[in-house]
């Protein structure tokens, strides 16, 4: 009993980390598909649930610290579980429960050896993310951060026999490491020359405005590379589609949030006095990222690439919220800072559930049909009705529609924008309405993207007449029980977070109390748990539960009324379509067709190459490709420059030993001259 009573939440969290490591090792040793899917993944989910519970219990409590005598001599690992860490651990635990349960069903057809390896990497990945959230010194943080990058690299290249997956993995690794260097430098600046790399000493270090700004910019760059903030987003649409779907769900839903955690940790906790232009920069970058992501999502033809671009958009929205919070915080408007921060954190949590759900959904579609290209799908609602219903929840949530969760965070963020007038800076006051407009535009475009995503995959007729993807339409089966449990967990999360926001905001409050010293929940709950009122009830109030109930009552009432006063007679017949009899499935919009208006309107942003058939072509052939302009503007010049420099360096290398001896000799002489 005494052991239990002295068990701190951080011990439980560490226990979960160890448990994950052991599970991974067991999986590696077992190499047995049935055992791994039936026991290891569900056990991992159970551990995740425990982690979520421990984190939830510690959100409001004191911060726990632990020092582990691992690592190098005299350089122990410091760990700390405070409100911010607990919040992100809660996110990790709660979302990975669903993903692990789903994995138990998803990987059932995989070969034992490969699955053992994947199971090992998967659990290492989970454990390293948990350690990133708990690290309290730069050393452990970087070790965990790199473990996370490496384990996810190996997960991305699970299908390493495909050149595309290897290429995607390399790009991911490259950008992750460029980012890691920036993070390391940022920690280096932050410790202020004391040589002590614990976060505690970084909090105490007094940096002047210049060095603080350098730190912030380095951190924004480094964490931005992980989060996919413009222009460092290029790896995301490559790596997410290449990875197996549960891994994509984990990377998009959880791993991107480690970067959000890092930005929050550095700008609010480690650096104490943020400057307003940091916020303006983050806000602008966030909005650009959001708009860019959603525009590219609208023109994608691969369902996982579409979701990857949508993740970029959502990261942009979260960053917008953080930027706004920094602006308010720097002007000591802490109530508003708490509002913006709550919106950002809420959206981060929502996104883990919504995007996890949708990526897992695409996994099931991929499993059932063997196809990722939207142009060969369609009509799956008839063959996979359960999956279609669950994915519909995620689709509506991601489109930001009430009464689901995506809308709540959007609502909070828009409220933060609306309440902002009165900043002592006229440029900012002008920027904010424009930013609100851009955010509203991005949110509306997200609706477009989601209608395309759901409509093309699940609705209509299968686009290859009776074949969907690589399978006959009649042989496509709905998802199995484990997958369904995982998906249902995430879908339930979307609904509950949408309908009962006040309960959750009361928990976020601990984080905003810690970061900006002000909470939202007291005012959010002052008129009862039913009402979300961020400042005062007269200013704004929203009650998702009432809205939800009224729409359902309205639907039932209408249904009842129609049946009661008229009749329910129904006949089936061929589709009408203005009386055109020669309908085929190929006359529906493809993914390209659905994205065409966006391509037309925002032509400027896309690099479009098209081959259009002439009027006399015997075999008419159409090919269109939309590419990322930033790739040619930003990445290719850097790649060419690197090539050029390496070519110049190559000139020094002849492979002749006397030349090298000469180089050494000249260097020695030069050094001697220099030292003397």
């Amino acid at each position, binding site marked *: 009993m005494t052991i239990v009573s002295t068990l701190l939440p951080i011990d439980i969290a560490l226990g979960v980390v160890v448990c994950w490591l052991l599970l991974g090792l067991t999986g590696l040793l077992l190499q047995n598909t049935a055992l791994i899917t039936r026991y290891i993944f569900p056990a991992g989910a159970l551990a995740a649930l425990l982690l979520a519970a421990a984190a939830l219990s510690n959100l409001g409590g004191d911060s726990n610290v632990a020092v582990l005598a691992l690592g190098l001599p005299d350089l122990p690992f410091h760990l700390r579980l405070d409100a911010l860490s607990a919040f992100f651990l809660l996110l990790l635990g709660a979302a990975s429960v669903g993903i692990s349960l789903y994995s138990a069903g998803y990987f059932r057809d995989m070969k034992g050896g490969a699955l053992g390896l994947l199971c090992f990497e998967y659990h290492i990945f989970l454990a390293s993310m948990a350690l990133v959230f708990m690290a309290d010194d730069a050393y452990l943080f970087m070790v965990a951060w790199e473990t996370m990058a490496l384990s996810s690299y190996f997960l991305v290249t699970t299908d390493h026999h495909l050149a595309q997956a290897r290429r995607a993995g390399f790009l991911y690794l490259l950008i992750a490491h460029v980012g890691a260097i920036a993070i390391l430098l940022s920690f280096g600046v932050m410790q202020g020359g004391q040589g002590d790399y614990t976060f505690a000493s970084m909090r105490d270090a007094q940096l002047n405005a210049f060095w603080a700004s350098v730190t912030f910019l380095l951190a924004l760059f480094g964490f931005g590379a992980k989060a996919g903030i413009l222009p460092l987003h290029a790896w995301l649409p490559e790596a997410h589609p290449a990875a197996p779907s549960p891994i994509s769900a984990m990377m998009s839903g959880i791993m991107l949030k480690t970067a959000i955690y890092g930005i929050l940790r550095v700008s609010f906790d480690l650096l104490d006095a943020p400057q307003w232009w940091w916020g303006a920069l983050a806000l602008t970058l966030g909005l650009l990222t959001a708009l860019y992501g959603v525009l590219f999502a609208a023109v994608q033809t691969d369902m996982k690439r579409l979701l990857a671009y949508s993740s970029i958009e959502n990261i942009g929205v979260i960053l917008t919220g953080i930027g706004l919070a920094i602006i308010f915080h720097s002007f000591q408007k802490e109530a508003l800072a708490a509002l913006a921060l709550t919106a950002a954190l809420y959206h981060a949590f929502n996104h883990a559930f919504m995007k996890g759900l949708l990526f897992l959904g695409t996994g099931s579609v991929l499993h059932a049909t063997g196809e990722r290209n939207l142009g060969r799908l*369609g*009509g799956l609602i008839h063959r996979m*009705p359960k999956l279609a219903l669950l994915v519909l929840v995620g689709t*509506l949530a991601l*489109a930001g*529609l*009430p009464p689901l969760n995506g809308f709540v965070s959007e609502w909070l963020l828009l409220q933060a924008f*609306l309440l902002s*007038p009165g900043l002592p800076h006229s440029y900012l006051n*002008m920027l904010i*309405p*424009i930013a*609100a*407009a851009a955010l*509203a*535009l991005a*949110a*509306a*475009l997200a*609706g*477009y993207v*989601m*209608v*395309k995503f759901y409509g093309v995959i699940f609705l*209509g*007729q299968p686009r290859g007449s009776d074949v969907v993807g690589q399978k006959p339409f009649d042989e496509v089966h709905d998802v199995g029980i484990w997958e369904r449990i995982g998906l249902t967990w995430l879908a339930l999360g979307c609904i509950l977070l949408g309908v009962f926001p006040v309960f959750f905001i009361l928990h976020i409050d601990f984080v905003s109390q810690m970061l900006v010293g002000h909470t939202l929940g007291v005012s959010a709950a002052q008129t009862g748990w039913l*009402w979300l009122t961020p400042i005062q009830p*007269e*200013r704004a*109030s*929203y*009650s998702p539960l009432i*809205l939800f109930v*009224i*729409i*359902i009552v*309205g*639907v039932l*009432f*209408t249904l009842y009324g*129609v049946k009661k006063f008229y*009749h329910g007679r*129904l*006949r*089936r*017949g*061929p*589709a*009408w*379509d*203005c009386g055109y009899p020669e*309908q085929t499935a190929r*006359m*529906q919009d493809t993914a390209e067709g*659905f994205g*065409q*208006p*966006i391509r*037309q*309107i925002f032509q400027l942003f896309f690099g479009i190459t098209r081959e259009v058939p002439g009027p006399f072509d015997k075999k008419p052939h159409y090919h269109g490709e939309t590419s990322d302009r930033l790739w040619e503007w930003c990445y290719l010049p850097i790649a060419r420059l690197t090539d050029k420099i390496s070519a110049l360096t190559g000139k020094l290398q002849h492979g002749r030993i006397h030349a090298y001896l000469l180089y050494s000799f000249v260097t020695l002489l030069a050094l001697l001259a220099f030292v003397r």
Partner: protein
Amino acid sequence: MNSLLLQLFQDTLVVLIAPLLLGWVNQCRAWLQNRSGAGVLQPYRNLIKLFHKDAVLANNASPLFRATPYILFASMWLAASLVPVIATDLPLSQAVDVIALVGIFALARVFISLAAMDVGTSFGTMGARREMLVGFLAEPALLMVFFTAATISHSTSLVTIVETLAHKQFVIYPSLAFAGIAFVMVLLAENARIPVDNPATHLELTMIHEAMILEYSARHLALIEWASALKLLAYFTIGCALFMPWGIAEVGNLAALPVALLALFIKLLLGGAGLALLETVTAKMRIFRVPEFMGTAFLLAVLGMLIHFLLGS
């Protein structure tokens, strides 16, 4: 208790008079085009006729297709009943502020677009695509219009907005003027009116809304038509609430109800006639021009908000 009764009264009122407004607009259009017209009650006759018919569903229509008319009707009914039109003492208005109202319109739009893609006909998907195209520019424009009003009254609650605007002296806000123009453009686009869409034809080159509901028949079609009428009414009442809130009965003032009702009818009569006039004097534009039209509306709305910040009024 009073406020609940008032809410129920408004719920019933909007659902009953919505087709009347549609009939009035159509009748005005007929008069302006030198036709005698079918009378203001024609929409009711249409609805009754449709409800009596047997529904025909396409062979491959899914449950989503069948559920959509009900969801559409319920959400539009909700939208129309939460805008304070005759009294500001509405409990529903507290639960759903302007941002959530825009969200409800978006919900309806997403569902009808998904339903249009469900059967998998060329017209259906084309309509869905065009609807979302109009929607993704109309939605932020509408939101910006609301934001202009919200920054003036420091609240996103419709009740507070209406009370603030109704109490002020008769001042012309330059920001609201911009917002007003943007709002009219959004109203035309969102309710499938000329110049964006033409509710009277099934011409493949131009149709948006009609293309989406081609596969619907009987009671489903009736519910969709009724929902469209409710949506038009909701937009009219939003216009009244934002730009001419005079005559509305405030909290606790039940004696003012008859006056408020009269004021509402006059506003709707004038507004309907104005819409008919606007539709008669403009020409339908090509679909490729629609994004420019909507973009203009969006920019005007943003400009309205910026002007508010610049002039402080």
